[in-house]
């Protein structure tokens, strides 16, 4: 299993993601101008402030050559994980539903949170998400623009199709996300985006190893 971790100007968490991926496979950085994902089995679009989050978080990064390659990779069924800014980029790129808005209280928050993996729903690929998780995951979240939003009918459809991957544990929603949604799958179940940072939860010394389950689940 070889992971490719994208790096844009302004990325912050790419080295952490690289380290996390290298715990469960090989991993290399993919510079934002690269178009060739040859030999890469799974892609991580990492957290940070790509292009300074100018204009809108993720709005510029989605036009990078590497993201064109990621869109083709995803369309061909390749597994893609977007974390925080990566989630924003994937939403901007149309690879994931919804949008991430400014936190409800307009402040950045960094907290260790419990994420509840969404349960199994018959008949959808995304529903596999729930199978590998039988308890809440302790993972840090840190962002100022993480309020998941989509029109009500889209939210209904995400729930019906099992595309909700994670919700914040009751009372822990840090940003006002609709229906406590912390992460979603695409319809095909190969692209996952979430605001919390599984790459910062892969070492017992720094707080938790629950994040590894997210990486492992993506490529199951």
């Amino acid at each position, binding site marked *: 299993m070889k992971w490719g971790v994208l790096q844009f*100007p*302004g*990325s*912050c*968490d790419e*080295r*952490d993601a690289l*380290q996390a991926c290298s715990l469960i496979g090989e991993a290399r950085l993919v510079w934002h101008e690269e178009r060739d994902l040859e030999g890469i089995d799974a892609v991580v679009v990492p957290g*940070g*402030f790509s*292009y*300074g*989050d*100018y204009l809108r978080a993720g709005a510029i990064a989605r036009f990078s050559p590497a993201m064109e390659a990621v869109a083709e990779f995803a369309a061909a069924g390749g597994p893609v994980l977007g974390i925080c800014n990566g989630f924003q980029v994937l939403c901007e790129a149309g690879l994931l539903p919804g949008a991430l808005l400014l936190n409800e*209280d307009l*402040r*950045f*928050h*960094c*907290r260790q949170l419990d994420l509840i993996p969404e349960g199994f729903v018959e008949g959808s690929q995304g529903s596999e998400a729930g199978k590998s998780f039988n308890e809440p995951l302790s993972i*840090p979240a*840190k962002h*100022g623009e993480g309020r998941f939003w989509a029109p009500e009918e889209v939210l209904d459809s995400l729930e019906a199709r099992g595309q909700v991957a994670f919700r914040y544990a009751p009372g822990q929603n840090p940003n006002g996300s609709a229906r406590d949604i912390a992460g979603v799958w695409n319809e095909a179940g190969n692209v996952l985006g979430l605001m919390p*940072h599984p*790459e*910062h939860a*892969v*070492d017992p*010394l*720094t*707080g938790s190893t629950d994040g590894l389950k997210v990486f492992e689940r993506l490529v199951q």
Partner: protein
Amino acid sequence: MSKHRELGLTDSELELIEEKLGREPNDVELAMFSLLWSEHCAYKHSRKLLRRLPTEGERVVMGPGENAGAVDVGNGHAVAFKVESHNHPSAVEPFQGAATGVGGILRDVFALGARPIAILDSLRFGELDSVRSRHLLDGAVRGIGHYGNSIGVPNVGGEIYFEAPYEHNCLVNAMCVGLAKTEDMVRAAAVGVGNAVVLMGASTGRDGIGGASVLASAELGDGDEAKRPTVQIGDPFEESKVLECCLELLDRGLLVSLQDLGAAGLTSSAAEMASAGGVGIDLDVGRVPLREADMEPFEIMVSESQERMLAVVKPAKVPEVLALCEKWQTGSAQIGIVTDSGQVRVLRDGALVGEMPVEALVDGCPLYDLSPAEPDGWIYGNRATLAGETSAHEILLALLASPSVASKRWAFEQYDSVVGSRTVRRPESADAAVLQIPEAGNAIAVAIDGNGRRVACDPYAGTVEAVLECVQNLACVGAEPLGLTNCLNFGNPEKPAPAWQLDRAVSGLADACTALGVPVVGGNVSLYNEGPEGPIYPTPVVGMVGELPDPAKTCGSGFAREGDSIALLGPFSPTLAGSELAKLRGALEMGLPQADIAAVAAACAAVREAVRAGRLSSAHDVSDGGLACALAESAIAGRIGCRVDLQPLRERGCSPEEALFGEGPGGFLISGERDALESLAATLIGTVGGSAIEVAAGDRSLAVGLAAAEDAWRSLSERLTADADL
């Protein structure tokens, strides 16, 4: 007013400049001299005092004089660190002032070739009932978060105090810690006649003109709004690119030396690089990429536009350097050359517009002796907020809710504390932050401390205490200090009382560091911190980096196990002098007991070894609010109560109130198995358990439920979260 005075130079300083040049300076030269001869750049009122500080040590890799200090952490790696102030910019415009304070200290660290791995900050504001203080607090916290979060450097610790003397002149001190391979580190000295001088990063604009002289080296007062254009505007995205670019340039061995552009912009970085290398530099301002085409040469030379770095490069490597800057989408231009003239020559498109000896610019500024005089008594106000008869129970809740003691979660949750995958101990989980260093096979601990109120009571003893508290914080996580950085925040040194405070504080810092064997590897001086009502509390802020062998063997501050014994360790003789309780009662006055530094050092060593051996369940130093607050903090952090009897302190001569709420250096509150504590010669005072903080202290005994204590301690964050003004 004559031009030189507007720029902050005295008549005699102008005469000295004319003497050194052999003529009158032109506008460009006058502007450059005024900045380099400002207090901020020349340390003209503090340099003589700073000679008292010990700067040598076995582990010192770089000492004062470089962009930051650095200490060896083993396996060929060094940790670079420095604390710096951005007080006046933050008082005028808190968001950008604090943001660029973080940006500036990051550049100081990566200028050495070290990747920044942690930020800490030490903040002071007026009392929170003031709208101004809440505005400054909110802006500064947002600014620090905005910059640090965007760069991807974790903010792992800090402190915030609220005291009336900071009402008009808040303090924003930021500390950065970086990691480098020792052999790859670079110095700031320009060497190699004929080498190119390359300016990298952001383009140069009119922001921050006169920041070091007009803003940083004068008292605040009426009309400060007009100084707003002297505050710089930060762009963390640009900094992120410049940071990665510089580290890659150094990794590839493409740079001879590197320096950040901070206060006084190109003027100071060029002059200081030339001075350190014993060379001259020619700069052509016509080659500097500008934001506005019509900038005058003096504006280009003194602009404090952020996110810029100056490098010396061998001519053959220049194309590679420029290409790498392009890869990182950051600006670059060759703007000058290293010469053997000993002069800084400023040209515009080839025509000479200024020429000054490097020596005159950098070392020519006269150094002044202070005229210190001890004030007659307490020179600050102190309004009582806790009046009348109060029970010990009420006092404890009042102390826990006092903004300087209460939880700062509201602030530190606005900072990313986990990026970088090194943070083993996050804010509020231990007395110092702990960062693992797999590159060296160990870990470091970092802390920052400085209680200005206690320094005001006795500048010497208070400064000694600041150093001791930092060492104690490190000991609580099992770390031994490697080096110290400091930021001396004081009032106007030309006035007798602040001069006396500064003089005594530097002596305290020097004596404490010497006695503890901790070298001072760098620092910063911020003077003229005064508002209309007078000077700030004298506030030496001490930042320390310590080493611990195993990141898995550290210790938190919260009680961990029901049934553990609780003990007090160290030469702790609490009094109410200078305490948080004395403040709440409006009873502050001059005087503090003197610390026994050797005895505190011995206690630190004992705690450190016990933590490293895994024999303690918790370790916490006794600080603001005294032992009762320390007990409450350990109980809240561990979500478990305690039953304690303070009779042993009574036997040392403490009154019940002194035992409960008295402050002073040297006290550790530890918990663990009874045998382990007894073997440390610690004084057993109680047991962990229950859901209340129960303390027997004669006629002042108290019992406070854990939930009530936590509510009080969390009240600051609740209040700020709900504050409609923010």
